[in-house]
């Protein structure tokens, strides 16, 4: 079983069609599957529903798919810093389901773990609770949230071995792990692919069972949204 594909276009072959539900990893521009997003843009598929914490920024990340109007609906917790998103949203061209960040992560985790729904205190008594079942446990109210099952997951990792065992780096792990598990097919791009046996089995973040297709995405020119630094004290 060969999981490694020569490039993003090849890795997505046969998976893409109009109206697809995608789950994408990343937080802001940190840990986003850039190569795979570019390939989805190039494919021209339309009417996509995308579950992703953010929607990229203008012409970066998922912002590229918004620019080409390939997205019908976003399921996200925060969509600031994106003018094109704002324009389409205000014009009624783009549907948005705002989902609290932790609820979104858990919906992906649950979907991937075979849990169709779960109760959470998050959002009780707010707009988020509208239309959802409320149930009291031990005297406190909880709302029912649904697990997310995506057709395809797009994720970005740091290192993977040839079998698909994968590691993330620092805060670039974020939504990549839960997103990977909730897709019927997960396509991963990584910075380095190493031979089987090179990674310590105790240090695998995402076991190979969740990774169906894999590409080497390097070299990366990782973008920073807010570069904040401190001054070095001079002697």
């Amino acid at each position, binding site marked *: 079983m060969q999981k490694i594909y020569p490039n993003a276009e090849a890795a997505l072959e046969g998976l893409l069609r109009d109206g697809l539900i995608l789950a994408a990893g990343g*937080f*802001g*521009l*940190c*840990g986003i599957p850039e190569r795979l997003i570019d390939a989805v843009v190039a494919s021209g598929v339309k009417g996509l529903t995308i579950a992703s*914490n953010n929607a990229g920024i203008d012409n970066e990340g998922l912002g590229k798919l918004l620019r080409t109007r390939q997205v019908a609906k976003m399921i*996200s*917790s*925060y*969509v*600031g810093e994106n003018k094109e998103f*704002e324009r389409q*949203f*205000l014009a009624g061209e783009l549907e*948005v389901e*705002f989902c*609290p*960040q*932790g*609820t*979104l*992560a*858990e919906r*992906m*985790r649950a979907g991937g773990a075979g849990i169709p729904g779960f109760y*959470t*205190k*998050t*959002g*009780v*008594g*707010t*707009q*988020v609770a509208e239309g959802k079942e409320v149930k009291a446990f031990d005297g406190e109210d909880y709302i029912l949230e649904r697990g997310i099952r995506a057709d395809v997951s797009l994720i970005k990792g*740091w290192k993977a071995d040839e079998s698909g065992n994968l590691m*993330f*780096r*620092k*805060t*670039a*792990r*974020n*939504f*990549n*792990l*839960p997103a990977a598990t909730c897709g019927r097919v997960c396509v991963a791009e990584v910075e380095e692919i190493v031979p089987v046996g090179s990674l310590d089995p105790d240090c695998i*973040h995402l076991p190979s069972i969740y990774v169906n297709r894999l590409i080497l995405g390097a070299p990366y020119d*990782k*973008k*920073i*949204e*807010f*570069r*904040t*630094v*401190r001054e*070095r004290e001079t002697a």
Partner: protein
Amino acid sequence: MPWDRNDMAARAAKELQDGYYVNLGIGIPTLVANNIPGGMTVTLQSENGMLGIGPFPYDDEVDPDLINAGKQTISELPQSSYFDSAQSFAMIRGGHIDLAVLGGMEVSEKGDLANWMVPGKMIKGMGGAMDLVAGVKKIIVVMEHTSKAGDAKFIPECTLPLTGKNVVDMIITDLAVFHRPDHDSPFKLIELAPGVTADEVRQKTSARYVE
């Protein structure tokens, strides 16, 4: 003299205790990190997947894979750990975080918080705020006492869409501190900024509270 932004953050920092795990919101709450009392171990959580937030990096140490929930570059500490978003919110929702300090647009006298959207303006989303107020053991809201137009922000009922219902434990404004021991009690005015009178606070507050 009302408190300035840093004074308000310093006042919030007085609520820290040794061993606390804390989540700080964007804006004034972030300044709490500069006011952690010496000798006290406080671990800061970043909801994008990190415990043990370090200071902003030096210019040559900036790492695009290492950011906080405000998407700013940060650094790690020897005791830092990383995890995914589901794990991050499991520790938030599960009540493992001791304290969250958040900004606010409105707080009601019943402890409701509104801080995520203004109808008619572009909605950016709630991010992790709803999860934090639902799961963290103690919620401190730090905000200006009145809006730019001079309207009270600590009010009988929130007019803006809620972030959480009956979730706030303490309010720190530029004028005063209000606290309640539990979610069934009314807020009590427990402290005034230097030179601020209880009368002034009363005039600028429409919420009912105990003095």
